[in-house]
C-alpha cells in the first residue's frame, strides 16, 4: 500500500544484498562450502573421465592374469591375453533378457569363474576380477561412460523440461493443458520399469555400436527423467509470466520468443541448473542400475565399460560372498561419491535460490567469523553488552544460565 516497511527489520529494504532482486549476484556461487566441495569432486571425476582410459594401465577387457593361474577352460577363451570373457555371458544374457532376469544371467558362466581374483597389489592397484581383469583399469575406463551417460541424459532431460515446462507455463491455455497432461503422464509412469522395458527392447535390437548404445541409453533415461523438471519450471514460469517486468517488456512491444529467452529464462537459470543436477544424478543412478541388471549391454554388444557393469559382474561372481571387496566396493564408492557431488552442488544452489536458507547460512557464517558463541533463538533476541564493568554477554541464550 504505501512505503512498505517490511515486517522484518527495516533494514531489509535498505541493504542491497537482501533486496529481492539481488540474490543472483550478491554472493557469487563458489562461496558456499557445499558448492566448493561439489565442484572439486566433480572436477576430479571429469578429469578421470577424460584421462581415465589413457591412464588405465591395462585394457579393461584384457584377461591378463599375472601370474596367470592356468585357466581350466582355456579353450573356451580366444587365444592370448586379449580375449573377451563375455562371449559366454552375453550369450546367456541374450537368452534370458526377454524375461528381464539379466541379474542372474551371468551367475552361471562356468567357463570363467575359476580365476581367483587377486587382492590389490603394486601391479594391480585394485586387484583383479574373477575374469583376471584389472579392476583399477575398469574403474578408470568406466568413469567416462558413467559420467557421459549421466551428463548427456541430464542435458537431454533438462532441454526437454525447459522446452515443455516453459512453453506450457508461458503460453498457457490449451498448450498448457496439453503439455501438462504429457508431463503428468510421464511423471505417473514408474521410471525404472519403463527403463527396463525400453532397455530390454534396446538390447534385443541387435545394436552393437558402443557409441550408439551410450546415446540410446541416455535418450531413454532422459525420456523417463524430464517430467519432474518440466513441472517445476512450468510452475515457476507461471509465476514469472505475470511479473511486472515481463508485463513491462510486453507493454514496450517485445516479441513473445524474445520475452521468453531474454526476460523469463535468465530468471529460471538456478532452477534449470538445479534440475539439471538432479536429473544427472537420476541418470547416473538409472544407468548404473540398468547396467547392474545387465540391460545396458556389455562391451561388444552395444554397451561399454561402466561402474554398474563392474558391480554386476562382481555380483554375478559372488564377489560379495568371497570377500573380494576390491572388485565391487570401488565402483560402488565411486557412484556414491559422484552422487554426493551432484547432491552437494544441488544443496548449494538450493541455498542460493531459497533466501531463507541463505540468510540462515550467512548469519551462521557471520557469527562464526565474529567468534560469537551463542545460538540465536527465535523470540529471544540476544543481548551482547560490552561495558567496562560487565564485559561479555548478558542474557544471551546459552550464556544466561
Amino acid at each position: 500500500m504505501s512505503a512498505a516497511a517490511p515486517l522484518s527489520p527495516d533494514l531489509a529494504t535498505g541493504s542491497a544484498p537482501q533486496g529481492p532482486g539481488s540474490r543472483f549476484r550478491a554472493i557469487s556461487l563458489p562461496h558456499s562450502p557445499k558448492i566448493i566441495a561439489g565442484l572439486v569432486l566433480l572436477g576430479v571425476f571429469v578429469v578421470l573421465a577424460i584421462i581415465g582410459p589413457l591412464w588405465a594401465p591395462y585394457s579393461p577387457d584384457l584377461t591378463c592374469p599375472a601370474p596367470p593361474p592356468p585357466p581350466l577352460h582355456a579353450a573356451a577363451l580366444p587365444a592370448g591375453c586379449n580375449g573377451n570373457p563375455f562371449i559366454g555371458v552375453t550369450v546367456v544374457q541374450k537368452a534370458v533378457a526377454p524375461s528381464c532376469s539379466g541379474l542372474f544371467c551371468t551367475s552361471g558362466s562356468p567357463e570363467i569363474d575359476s580365476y581367483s581374483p587377486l587382492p590389490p597389489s603394486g601391479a594391480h592397484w585394485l586387484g583383479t576380477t574373477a575374469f583376471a581383469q584389472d579392476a583399477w583399469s575398469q574403474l578408470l575406463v568406466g568413469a567416462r561412460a558413467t559420467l557421459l551417460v549421466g551428463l548427456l541424459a541430464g542435458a537431454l532431460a533438462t532441454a526437454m523440461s525447459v522446452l515443455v515446462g516453459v512453453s506450457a507455463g508461458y503460453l498457457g491455455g490449451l498448450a498448457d493443458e496439453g503439455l501438462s497432461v504429457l508431463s503428468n503422464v510421464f511423471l505417473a509412469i514408474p521410471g525404472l520399469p519403463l527403463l527396463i522395458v525400453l532397455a530390454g527392447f534396446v538390447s534385443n535390437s541387435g545394436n552393437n555400436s558402443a557409441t550408439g548404445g551410450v546415446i540410446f541409453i541416455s535418450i531413454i533415461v532422459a525420456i523417463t527423467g524430464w517430467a519432474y523438471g518440466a513441472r517445476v519450471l512450468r510452475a515457476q514460469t507461471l509465476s514469472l509470466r505475470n511479473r511486472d517486468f515481463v508485463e513491462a517488456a510486453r507493454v514496450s512491444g517485445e516479441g513473445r520468443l524474445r520475452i521468453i529467452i531474454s526476460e523469463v529464462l535468465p530468471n529460471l537459470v538456478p532452477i534449470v541448473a538445479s534440475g539439471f543436477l538432479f536429473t544427472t544424478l537420476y541418470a547416473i543412478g538409472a544407468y548404473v542400475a540398468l547396467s547392474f541388471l545387465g540391460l545396458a549391454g556389455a562391451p561388444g554388444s552395444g554397451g561399454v565399460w561402466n561402474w554398474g557393469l563392474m558391480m554386476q559382474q562382481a555380483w554375478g561372481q559372488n564377489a560379495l560372498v568371497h570377500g573380494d571387496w576390491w572388485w565391487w566396493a570401488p565402483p560402488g564408492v565411486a557412484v556414491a561419491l559422484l552422487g554426493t557431488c551432484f547432491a552437494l552442488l544441488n544443496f548449494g544452489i538450493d541455498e542460493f535460490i531459497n533466501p531463507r536458507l541463505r540468510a540462515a547460512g550467512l548469519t551462521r557464517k557471520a557469527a562464526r567469523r565474529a567468534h560469537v558463541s551463542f545460538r540465536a533463538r527465535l523470540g529471544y533476541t540476544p543481548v551482547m553488552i560490552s561495558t567496562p564493568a560487565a564485559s561479555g554477554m548478558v542474557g544471551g541464550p546459552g550464556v544466561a544460565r
Partner: protein
Amino acid sequence: MTATAVYKPSVTSAAPLVLEGRDLTKHFAVKEATGIFARRVPLYAVDRVSIGLRAGTVTAVVGESGSGKTTVARMLAKIIQPDRGQLLLDGEPVPRGRPRSYAAQVQMVFQDPFASLNPVHRVRHNLVRPLQIHRVVDDVEAGVDDLLRRVALEPPEQFADKFPHELSGGQRQRVSIARALAVQPRVLLADEPVSMLDVSIRLGVLNLLADLRDRERLAILYVTHDIGSARYLADTIMVMYAGQMVEAAPSATLTDSPAHPYTQLLLSAAPDPERVEPPSLAGSGAPPSLVRPPSGCRFHPRCPHAMDICSQETPASVTVAPGHTAACWLHVDPARRRVDGRAAPAASPEAPATYAALPGPTKPHHPEED
C-alpha cells in the same frame, strides 16, 4: 530536478484527447469456494468505466484496493483485454491484440519498482530494448544517456551499467519511467508509481511526472489510493468505487467540494494534520464483494444518505457543476428519480448527464466547461 507550476486548469479541456476508453468492462472468473465443487463465477471488477486522457494533462484515478483502478489502467495499456467497451487512440478505434504501433504511443509505469525491472538485466538493457524495437533513434547509446538525463539520473554513464538491486527505490522508479519514455509515447499510464517509495522521495517522482506533462505534453494517467497526492499532481480526479466511476472533477474542485458521498467518506478518512474538527466518517463498513455487488448504486449499503431508489437503480453520471460529474441519485432532480431504467440520465435540463460529461469525446465540445 525542478518542479514547475503544478496547476493549469485552463488547459485541461482544451487539450486534444489522446487516449480514450469507453464503457470499459472487465469481469474476471474466480473460484467461489475451495474444493472440487468450486464454481467459477464472474467478479465484476470494472463496470462501464469511461475515461479520456488529454495531452499535457494528468488524470488521476483514485480508489481503494479492489475498486478496479489498476484494472482500468491495465486495460488502457492493453495488458488486460476488456470484455466490453472500446479504446480509441486519437479518436480511432484501436485494433485488437497488442500491436507495436500501440506500444509506441501508450506506455506504462508499474507500482513496484522492485518487481518491474528484471533483476538479471542492467539498466542499459531496459532502455536499449524499446529503443531498438521501435527504432526511435539511430544512436542507441546516446538515446540511453538522453533518457537517463530526462529522468534526472545523472551522470547517465554512472547509472547505465548498474543492476536494479544497486539502485534505490526512487532511482528504480526513475528507470521504469525512462523505459516507458524510450518509445517516445504520448500517453503514460502510471499505476501507483510512488506508493512503494519512501515518503521523502515520493515528491521527487511526482514532480518528474508533472515535469513530463508540462515539457513533453504527455497525457498521464495517475492511479493512486492517496487522494492528497492526486490533488497535488492531477488536473482531473476520477474516483472509483467497487468497479464504477462515481465522481470526476478538476482536482481542487473535487477535494474542496466533493459531490458523491463516497468521495466525502474518502476525504474524511484521509490523514490531515490541519484538520480542526474531529473527522466524522460519513458511512462505515467495507467495500462490497464484487462477485455479488449490491443492486443499484454499489455504495448504497454504506451510504448515510441512501434512499429507496439507490438500492434499485444504478445512478447515471450527473453534471453537478461544469466539468464536475457524480453518479449519485442525490444530484438527480427528485422528479426524475424513477426506477424505470431509461429515465435516469437527465439531471436537469441545462446539464445533460451522460458519460460524456466527463472530459470525453462522446461529447467532444463542451462549451460550458472552462
